[in-house]
């Protein structure tokens, strides 16, 4: 039995039947990492010793007849922009390459409290800025379905790790699609929860009004288990919502009868690869055949989402990244004269090109004389985009679209043209602007590469998204496909 191919809930069943041990599970995953990591490059840091130690503690609990949680002993990867106490956390940036946080992010603490074993920290686009993981300051992660192609970004390391069997589940962060787009490219399930549903405490901030942590998993059931484990109010985070976390596993019902699903025309228009559109239309027909009411609708301000996002996100980023000055932590340039020179040199040598581009863009749009024309204007358009969703959700329970206009692209294809790269987030960014939840799950293959289906829901209605996603998954078999990982 190849344990690294199983889901968390399958492994949990075997654990409680005492057919396997948590240590065996973790060893199987680390063996898999040994086998394929040189072809994939998912991890910046691996934590075998501490993972095995946690696994042995779970095995002891089982031996003692103590109850374990659904994630106990399950190997989980964490994107390297979430702080881990005593464990290097880099955000894939030279400026943080030697940073060892003295505290853990709330999500990491929650996973550890749930008994999960953290197997390592995964690669990302520097400071989560990018759509391909080509912007990492360290190395590029490869797509397990075709190593000549990108895994997506910015959580490419987490998506690739889950896809290749190098972790059972993972955490990513999503500012404009950075969980859903790599989930789509790698053929796994990825969810961006409602803004505020999961604590951001300990997440290295990119754009504070948009960033949200969420799970990667191989199926919808694991996604629900992960979501439940990390959700909830956190008094340490002023952007955390005070709400009662629902029982997400109760939403895993194979039934969509009576649900109303809207398909925004703007997400199926020109620019979406015809084969992707075909896969999504098949998904629409399937859900309709299962009893959902599926019809086209409109989100009229969709075309303005991209410029709105690429004004707001860099503006917030330029402010958040002002803290990297080489004084208290991070990289400091060696040859500085005075303190301003030290700031300038440390930042210039420490940040990569995409980060500098966004600092420049954000600083420009926030600067005197341009604030009203760009930033304030974008905040107002954000209102219009949010109102589009509010109106749509008066009529529909869920909205459905492709996750990305195309399957994973090849390395270098877009890296020199930032605008083209930004366009690959076209189907996902509105969700972040509106703060609603979104999930991506596999809905087919084009030329051997996975295609993602995106479902979007009302604020805090992750349950309905999980129900539709689960029904789709139970009536298809795409999530069971596994890549061979051939370099």
């Amino acid at each position, binding site marked *: 039995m190849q344990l690294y191919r199983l889901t968390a809930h399958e492994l949990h069943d075997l654990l409680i039947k005492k057919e396997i041990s948590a240590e065996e599970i973790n060893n199987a995953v680390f063996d898999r990492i040994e086998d394929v990591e040189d072809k994939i490059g998912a991890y910046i840091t691996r934590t075998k010793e501490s993972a095995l130690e946690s696994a042995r503690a779970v095995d002891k609990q089982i031996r003692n007849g103590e109850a374990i949680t659904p994630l106990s002993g399950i190997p989980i990867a964490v994107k390297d922009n979430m702080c881990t106490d005593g464990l290097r956390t880099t955000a894939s940036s030279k400026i943080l390459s030697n940073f060892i946080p*003295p505290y853990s992010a709330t999500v990491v603490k929650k996973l550890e409290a749930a008994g999960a074993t953290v197997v390592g920290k995964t690669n990302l686009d520097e400071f989560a800025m990018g759509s391909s993981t080509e912007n990492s300051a360290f190395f590029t992660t490869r797509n397990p379905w075709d190593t000549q192609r990108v895994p997506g970004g910015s959580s490419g390391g987490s998506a690739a790790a889950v896809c290749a069997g190098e972790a059972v589940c993972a955490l990513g962060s999503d500012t404009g699609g950075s969980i859903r787009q790599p989930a789509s490219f790698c053929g796994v399930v990825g969810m961006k929860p409602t803004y505020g549903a999961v604590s951001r405490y300990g997440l290295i901030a990119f754009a504070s009004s948009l960033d949200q942590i969420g799970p990667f998993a191989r199926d919808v059931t694991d996604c629900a288990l992960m979501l439940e484990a990390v959700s909830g109010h956190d008094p340490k985070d*002023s952007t955390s919502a005070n709400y009662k976390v629902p029982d997400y596993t109760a939403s895993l019902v194979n039934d969509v009868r009576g649900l109303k699903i809207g398909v925004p025309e703007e997400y199926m228009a020109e620019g979406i690869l015809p084969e992707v559109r075909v896969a999504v239309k098949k998904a629409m027909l399937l859900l309709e055949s299962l009893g959902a009411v599926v019809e086209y609708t409109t989100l009229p301000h969709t075309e303005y989402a991209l*410029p709105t996002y690429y004004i707001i996100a860099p503006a917030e980023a330029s402010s958040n990244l002002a803290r990297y000055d080489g004084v208290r932590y991070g990289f*400091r340039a060696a040859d500085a004269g005075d303190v301003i*020179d*030290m700031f*300038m040199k440390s*930042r210039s040598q420490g940040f990569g090109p995409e980060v500098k581009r966004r600092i420049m863009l954000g*600083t420009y749009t926030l600067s005197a004389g341009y604030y009203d024309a760009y930033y304030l204007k974008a905040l107002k358009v954000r209102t219009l985009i949010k109102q589009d969703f509010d109106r749509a959700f008066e009529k529909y329970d869920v909205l459905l679209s492709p996750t990305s206009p195309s399957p994973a692209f090849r390395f270098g294809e877009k890296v020199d043209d930032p605008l083209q790269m930004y366009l690959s987030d076209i189907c996902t960014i509105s969700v972040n602007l509106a703060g609603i939840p979104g999930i991506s799950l596999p809905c087919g293959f084009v030329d051997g590469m996975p295609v993602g289906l995106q479902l979007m829901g009302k604020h805090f209605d992750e349950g309905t998204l999980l129900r539709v996603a689960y029904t789709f998954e139970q009536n298809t078999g795409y999530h069971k496909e596994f890549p061979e990982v051939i370099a």
Partner: protein
Amino acid sequence: MITGKDVDHVALLGRLELTAEEKEMFTRQLNDILEHFRSLERLDTENVQPTAHVLPLQNVYREDQVGQHMSREDALSNCPDRDENYFKVPKIV
């Protein structure tokens, strides 16, 4: 239209020192990106309220009581240069 002079000014505000190649590249790319943003001008947003945040935010306060906090050693553990219990930086004035 963004000029090289604008790029220099913005780089200074962002505390970035650009090479000649970076300056040329950012001038071109920022012009392309900002040109794309001009589509927003088509929208009338005269009476639209801005959305800075989708949630009503509240500051996180705690009681003013002595409690557990990060130790001085932990706080200083990542600093590139220190002098006993201080962060050390080059001369300011």
